[in-house]
């Protein structure tokens, strides 16, 4: 069972769900990088936590020793078996080549730069509608009322499912990612999500549409239709990966701007800075940590990793490595050189990165256009979620 005792030794007994880590992992990573750059824990299985850019990217590229068959940061169910509820997992993210290679090629065109640009009007309209709903009230929860509402609806459109289901989708995805250490809640969320997509697939078998699900049903590989379990896994992945992640990035960006009035003013005054500023916000507040499974006993960076151990791919910590980034713990909106790995590195580079960037850009542009000046609401709590995906879940702000 998961232990929840507070951590006193971050090098040998870390816990990514520890409240201190969720609230402020940055100082912990800074300490680890200089004292024990690859930390270890036996909480929830044997897990390693690299904190240096060089180590994180090297492991991401070494797919021979570090498999993606289990990518959950919090093990799902006994022995992590819940992660493989489906025969093929969630390809391509939880797969290695060759399955990874061809399933990824099926998805990428749906998230190409050009395709993503076609979703801009929908995203902009959605953001404006949300802002209209609270701009006159002087305050809102920037996470609940805004950030959380955007990616889920865009992804629903791409999948071809009803955005009326947005709240259910958000609930299931949170059950799976955020509350994964609660076995019952995780498996209930996963079951509902899979049942929903099973029924949606059955519907499209009868009446195909022009959406991603329909196309997967019509796709043939080597002359045969795709296995239903693969389609289901891909559909579930797109929803799971497309909701919490970008919502967290938008929320963290708004949190930074709410707490740093100088940056807020600067971004309003210099809208051309947005692309560079956005990359910097992605660097500083990269939401996603993914896991890898060690395929056989191997020594890496002096650490005796055993077959079956997990490595938590700490892309967020890599992005704060002072060996690679000057003033790594500062947000520098005009940072010109920024090889951040918020979307990962190597063959598993986030397939939805174009979409995420577009949603983030439009969401921030529209917010700042309508609400150019805002601050945290005094006396109200900001609540962060962490583990696989870090971002604010409650973000009360005021805009007098």
């Amino acid at each position: 069972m998961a232990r929840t005792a507070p951590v006193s030794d971050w090098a040998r007994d870390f816990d990514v769900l520890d409240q201190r880590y969720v609230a402020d992992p940055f100082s912990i990573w800074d300490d680890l990088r200089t004292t024990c750059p690859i930390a270890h824990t036996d909480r929830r299985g044997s897990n390693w936590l690299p904190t240096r850019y060089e180590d994180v990217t090297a492991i991401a590229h070494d797919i021979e020793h570090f498999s993606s068959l289990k990518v959950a940061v919090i093990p799902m169910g006994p022995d992590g078996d819940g992660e493989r509820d489906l025969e093929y997992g969630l390809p391509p993210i939880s797969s290695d080549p060759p399955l990874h290679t061809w399933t990824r090629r099926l998805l990428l065109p749906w998230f190409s730069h050009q395709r993503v640009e076609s979703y801009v009007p929908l995203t902009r309209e959605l953001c404006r509608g949300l802002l209209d709903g609270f701009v006159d009230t002087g305050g809102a929860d920037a996470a609940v009322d805004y950030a959380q509402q955007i990616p889920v609806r865009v992804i629903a459109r791409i999948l071809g499912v009803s955005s009326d289901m947005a709240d259910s989708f958000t609930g299931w995805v949170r059950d799976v990612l955020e509350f994964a250490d609660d076995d019952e809640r995780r498996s209930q969320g996963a079951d509902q999500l899979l049942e929903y997509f099973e029924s949606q697939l059955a519907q499209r078998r009868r009446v195909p549409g022009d959406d991603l699900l329909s196309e997967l049903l019509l796709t043939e590989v080597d002359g045969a239709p795709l296995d239903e379990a693969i389609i289901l896994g891909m559909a579930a992945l797109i929803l799971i990966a497309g909701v919490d992640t970008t919502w967290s990035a938008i929320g963290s960006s708004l949190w930074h701007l709410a707490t740093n009035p100088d940056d807020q003013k600067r971004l309003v005054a210099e809208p051309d800075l947005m692309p560079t500023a956005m990359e910097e916000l992605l660097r500083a507040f990269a939401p996603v940590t993914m896991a890898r499974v060690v395929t056989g006993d191997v020594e890496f960076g002096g650490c005796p990793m055993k077959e079956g151990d997990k490595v938590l791919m700490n892309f967020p910590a890599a992005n704060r490595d002072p060996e690679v980034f000057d003033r790594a713990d500062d947000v520098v909106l005009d940072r010109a050189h920024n090889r951040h790995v918020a979307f990962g590195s190597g063959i598993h580079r986030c397939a939805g990165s174009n979409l995420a960037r577009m949603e983030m850009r439009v969401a921030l542009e529209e917010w700042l256009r309508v609400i150019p000046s805002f601050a945290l609401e005094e006396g109200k709590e900001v609540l962060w979620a962490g583990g696989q995906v870090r971002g604010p879940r409650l973000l009360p702000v005021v805009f007098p």
Partner: protein
Amino acid sequence: MKIRIDPEKCQGHARCYALARELFAVDDYGQASVIVDEVPTELEGKADLAIANCPEYAIERVGD
């Protein structure tokens, strides 16, 4: 100035394309390519930015 992209290293982050559309294209699969033979002098700064922002270290100067 000439630049090239190592197709084995490129993973489709599209940072180069975002920074310098005059110099790079990306296909439906995210694979980036250089679309100029010679980088015009006035775009050399942008080419350097693209090189310095590629998370895969996939872009390099050819010769010097």
